[in-house]
């Protein structure tokens, strides 16, 4: 008997440069849903279009719990980590997730985040001062893109920045797509032990920071256990630096690759907001999809997803859906684009998005004035990418000025 399952393509697909994998295009154009085979032989659905991704992510019949049968893990490393580590809130369903997320919502409101603008500006200025003073050349990723969000998340949580190498290295190991799963688990455990100590310190010596507020508002009244707070803060620390660091470098690379757009932003800072949204859309750094498993049969746009089947919602494909974003392959900061799903959708939509946007806003308003002659020191096609990382980004961004 013919086994139709043999025709199922293997996911993930190869990525060649700054753009999402070319193989996604035909599947997106065809039906917007595609069955694929994962590393362990299991099959799962890819969701490739804007409306499909929104529908799945807003639908509470899909679970984010990796312990549920059929949950799609994109690699062996990820499978091992997600099965063994105590989950953070992105791997919890309602009502547990709702309870924890609501404790954090007030820390990430628009007015709260906007009140950090001066602090972020100071951090951006300091980082740029240092690199400019040292003189060209530089690795823009290590010298500029990473220290900014690392400093900012330290400022918010109350983590001492002098420990940045410790948590940056472990963050990279934890967010590995490929690599030794034991290393990822160890990295998680080490950061959690570090945060546990920090919480204990703040219990004795309160300060004006998120950790102290969690202790006073949630732990002491008995709403949140010490262990839950540890996982929550570990998650904020890791999620808070590497993602934005990647976006600062990728955004800069895209502007420099098409020099007139860098000049245009320099001449007209009011383009910054549109430029940021275009960077988020174009790069969509969550490259292996947002993983869910169906908890009952669901029919969507003619596709039937059975209970226990895994679904990977690909934001990097949805944001290149030409029915929503015309000429998606053309990076253009002048174009007012439609709403993208780079931060996801549904109850798990990125908690830190106002912060990510603030950091990008301050950064891209400041950079072109401070480094007007900035240019890539390699050809764009020679850029190297983080091959083992779950989140897309450049390995290094050699620049001069």
């Amino acid at each position, binding site marked *: 008997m013919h086994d139709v399952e043999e025709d199922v393509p293997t996911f993930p697909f190869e990525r060649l440069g700054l753009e999402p994998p070319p193989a996604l295009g035909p599947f997106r154009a065809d039906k917007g849903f595609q069955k694929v085979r994962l590393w362990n032989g299991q099959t799962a659905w890819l969701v490739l279009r804007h409306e499909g991704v929104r529908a799945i*992510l*807003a639908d509470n019949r899909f679970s984010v719990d990796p312990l549920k049968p059929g949950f799609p893990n994109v690699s062996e490393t990820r499978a091992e980590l997600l099965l063994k580590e105590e989950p953070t809130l992105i791997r919890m369903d309602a009502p547990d997730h*709702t309870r924890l*997320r*609501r404790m*954090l*919502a*007030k*820390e*990430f*409101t*628009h*007015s*709260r985040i906007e009140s950090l603008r001066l602090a972020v500006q100071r951090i951006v200025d300091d980082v740029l001062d240092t690199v400019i003073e040292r003189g060209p050349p530089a690795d823009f990723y290590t010298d500029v893109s990473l220290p900014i969000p690392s400093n900012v998340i330290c400022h918010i949580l109350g983590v001492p920045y002098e420990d940045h190498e410790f948590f940056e290295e472990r963050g990279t190991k934890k967010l590995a797509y490929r690599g030794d799963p034991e290393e990822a688990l160890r990295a998680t455990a080490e950061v959690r032990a570090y945060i546990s100590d920090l919480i204990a310190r703040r219990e004795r010596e309160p300060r004006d920071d998120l950790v102290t507020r969690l202790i006073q508002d949630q732990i002491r009244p008995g709403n949140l256990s010490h262990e839950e707070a540890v996982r929550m803060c570990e998650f904020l620390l890791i999620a808070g630096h590497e993602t934005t660091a990647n976006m600062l470098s990728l955004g800069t690379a895209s502007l420099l690759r098409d020099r007139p757009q860098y000049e245009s932003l320099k001449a007209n800072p009011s383009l910054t907001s549109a430029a940021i949204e275009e960077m988020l859309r174009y790069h969509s750094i969550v490259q292996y999809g947002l993983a869910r498993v169906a908890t009952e049969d669901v029919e969507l746009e003619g596709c039937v997803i059975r209970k226990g089947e895994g679904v990977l919602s690909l934001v990097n494909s949805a944001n290149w859906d030409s029915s929503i974003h015309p000429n998606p392959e053309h990076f253009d900061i002048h174009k007012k684009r439609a*709403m993208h799903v780079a931060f*996801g*959708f*549904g*109850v798990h*939509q990125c*908690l830190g*998005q*106002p912060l990510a946007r603030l950091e990008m806003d301050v950064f891209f308003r400041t950079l072109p004035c401070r480094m007007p002659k900035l240019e890539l020191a390699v050809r764009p096609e020679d850029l190297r990418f983080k091959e083992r990382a779950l989140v897309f980004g450049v390995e290094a961004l050699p620049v001069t000025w």
Partner: protein
Amino acid sequence: MKIVADLERCIGAGQCVANAERFFTQDEETGQVVIQVPTVTETEREEVEMAIYACPTRALSLIQ
């Protein structure tokens, strides 16, 4: 038209504020939506509908 918010669904993502600041703000303690201007005229409708479309938990609606 009138804006209605379902606070059971709202998780305080703040997309309403990002898209239609004149109509929405967030509660300082919970982060949840606070409707500042509940009544929407025909000319304002597009802006509010954008905020409704942006809401990740579909907690907002417009009623006649």
